[in-house]
C-alpha cells in the first residue's frame, strides 16, 4: 500500500547499451503523447487572452495582442466572488463532515465487533454500484417538501452520512494500523472516541488527506447536484455559473475560456501542492480492486 511512484525504486536491472534506442523511442512517444495532452490547455489559455473580434477565425497559438482584460471582463459578467464563496461554503463544509463521518464509520467497521458487521459492510460496498439516479426523484421530493429547495442543505447534509467509497478506503487503511496501539491507549484509560481521535486519526493522516482531496474534488466539480437543487442566480456554484454563463454568452469564447481557466485554477494549485497525496489515495483505492 505504500508504493512510491516517484521512481526511487532500486535500479535492479542492468542497463545495457542495447536498451538505449528503446529508451529514446520511449521518450519520443512520451513527448508526443504529452504534447497532445497539453494542446487543450494551451488552446484554453491562448483563447482566454485573445481579442473578442474574429475570435472564431483567429487560430493563432500565441495571441497578438495579449488581452489580459478578458479576465476582469469575465468577472464583470458574473459575480465571481459570490459564486466562489458559495462553492467554498459547500465544498469545505462537506469536506469536514465527510472526513469526520467516514472515519468514525470506518473505525467501527475496522475495529468493532458486532452482529451483522460483515453483512452491513457488503451492503455498504454494494451501494457504490447503485446509480444516484435511482434515488434522485424521492430524495428531491423529500428535500423540497421540507422546504430546502434552492438552499445548500440538500448539497451539504448528505456529506454528514459518509460516502461508501471513502469509508471503504479508510477502513482498509485502519486495518493496517496495529491493534496493539488501540490496546495500549485503552490500558491508559482512553474510551472509544478518544482511541478514534487520538490514536487512529493521527496514524491515518495520508489516507485522511487523500479522502479530503477526493471530497474537495467531488464537490468543487459537482454539476448535477447544484443543477437540480438550486434555481436562483445568487445560489449558483462556480460549475453551475460557468454553465449558465455559456448559455447567455455563447459567442464570447474569450470570456468563457477565461472563466473556465479561473474555475480550473484551484484544482491545479491543489494538485501541485498535494501531488503525493493524490497519487497515494488512488493507489490505495486501486490496489487489488
Amino acid at each position, binding site marked *: 500500500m505504500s508504493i512510491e511512484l516517484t521512481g526511487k*525504486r532500486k535500479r535492479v536491472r542492468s542497463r545495457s547499451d542495447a536498451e538505449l534506442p528503446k529508451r529514446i523511442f520511449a521518450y519520443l512517444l512520451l513527448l508526443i503523447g504529452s504534447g497532445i495532452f497539453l494542446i487543450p490547455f494551451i488552446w*484554453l489559455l491562448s483563447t482566454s487572452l485573445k481579442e473578442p473580434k474574429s475570435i472564431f477565425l483567429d487560430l493563432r497559438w500565441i495571441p497578438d495582442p495579449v488581452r489580459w482584460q478578458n479576465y476582469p471582463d469575465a468577472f464583470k459578467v458574473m459575480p465571481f466572488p459570490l459564486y466562489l464563496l458559495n462553492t467554498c461554503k459547500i465544498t469545505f463544509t462537506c469536506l469536514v463532515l465527510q472526513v469526520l463521518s467516514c472515519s468514525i464509520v470506518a473505525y467501527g467497521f475496522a475495529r468493532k465487533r458486532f452482529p451483522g458487521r460483515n453483512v452491513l459492510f457488503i451492503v455498504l460496498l454494494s451501494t457504490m454500484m447503485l446509480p444516484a439516479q435511482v434515488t434522485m426523484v424521492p430524495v428531491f421530493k423529500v428535500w423540497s417538501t421540507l422546504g430546502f429547495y434552492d438552499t445548500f442543505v440538500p448539497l451539504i447534509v448528505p456529506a454528514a452520512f459518509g460516502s461508501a467509497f471513502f469509508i471503504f478506503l479508510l477502513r482498509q487503511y485502519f486495518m493496517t494500523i496495529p491493534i496493539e496501539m488501540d490496546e495500549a491507549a485503552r490500558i491508559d484509560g482512553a474510551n472509544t472516541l478518544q482511541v478514534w481521535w487520538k490514536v487512529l486519526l493521527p496514524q491515518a493522516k495520508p489516507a485522511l488527506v487523500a479522502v479530503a482531496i477526493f471530497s474537495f474534488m467531488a464537490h468543487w466539480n459537482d454539476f448535477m447536484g447544484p443543477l437540480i437543487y438550486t434555481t436562483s442566480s445568487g445560489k449558483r456554484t462556480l460549475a453551475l455559473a460557468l454553465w449558465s454563463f455559456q448559455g447567455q454568452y455563447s459567442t464570447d469564447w474569450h470570456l468563457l475560456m477565461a472563466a473556465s481557466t479561473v474555475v480550473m485554477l484551484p*484544482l491545479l494549485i491543489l494538485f501541485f501542492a498535494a501531488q503525493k497525496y493524490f497519487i497515494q489515495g488512488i493507489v490505495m483505492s486501486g490496489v487489488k480492486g
Partner: protein
Amino acid sequence: MEGYLCIAPWLIGFALLTLGPMIFSFIISLTQWDLINSPKFVGLDNYRIIFTDDFRFRQSLKVTALYAAMSVPLGMIGSLCVAMLLNLNMRGMRVFRSIFYLPAILPGVAVTMLWMWILRPQDTGVLNHILGFFGVSPKPWLSDPAWALPSFVIMSLWGIGGGMIIYLSGLQSVPTQLYEAAEIDGAGSWRKFTTITLPMISPTIFFNLVMGIIGSFQVFTASYIMTPNGGPGYSTLFYVLYLYQKAFKYLQMGYASALAWILFAVVLALTLIVFKTSAKWVYYESEVKQ
C-alpha cells in the same frame, strides 16, 4: 453496541437517503406523477411503454452502449500504454505523469466547454486546424450525427489519466525478480509482458474495467452541456440525459424512476458478467493455485 454507534452516521444515511428512497422510487416507478398532483397508480405501464413504445429509450440505450463499447476499451488500452511508458525508470517521469493525469481531475463543466471550443466544426475549430496539417479534411464533429458520439469518445480519452495512475500503481507492485528470472530464461519484452505483466496486473485491469463500465453508463455533465437536447438526430442522447429530461424537463417522475431502475439493472448485469468471467482471467497473488 458501540460498534453500531460508530457506524450510525452511515446506517442512518443509508436508511434515509438510500434504502428508503429506493423503495419509494420503485413505488413511484409504478405511477404517473408530476411532483405537484398526487401520484396515480398505473401498475407496470411505465415499464411496458419503455420497452415497447419508446424510441428515445432504445436510442439512449444504444448511444450509451455504443459509447461504452468505444470509450472503455480505447481508454483502457490507452491508459495502460501510457502507464507502461511511465513505468520505465527514466528522468522527468514526474512531469510526464502530471501532464497525463491533470485532465482527469478538472471540473467536468470547464473541461466540456473547452472541448466544445476545440471541437468547433469546419475551419473554426482548432482540432480541425491541427488535423489539417496531416491532410485530414475538417470534420463537423458535434453538429453531425455520425461524428457527434466519436467527439465524446475523443474527449473522454483526454481523461484517461485516472485509469493510468491506477495501472501505474499496479505495474509498480510487480516484483522485479519475476522479470529477472524471465530474462535469465531468455524471455523477450513481449513475452515478459504477456506472461508476467498482464497476469500480475489483472486485478487492476479488472478494477478499471468495472469502474469504466459503471462510469460510461452514467455520463451526464458532458452530454447535458454539449448537446442538451440529445444532439443531431438524438445521436448523443445519453441514458442519464434522457432520464434527466423525463424527470426535470417533462416532470414525469414515475417514468424517470422506471428508467433509473432499468439503468440499475443494466449496470448490475454488466458488472456481474465481468465478475463471473473474472475467475478465468484475474489472478490474485494470495490465492492458492490448484
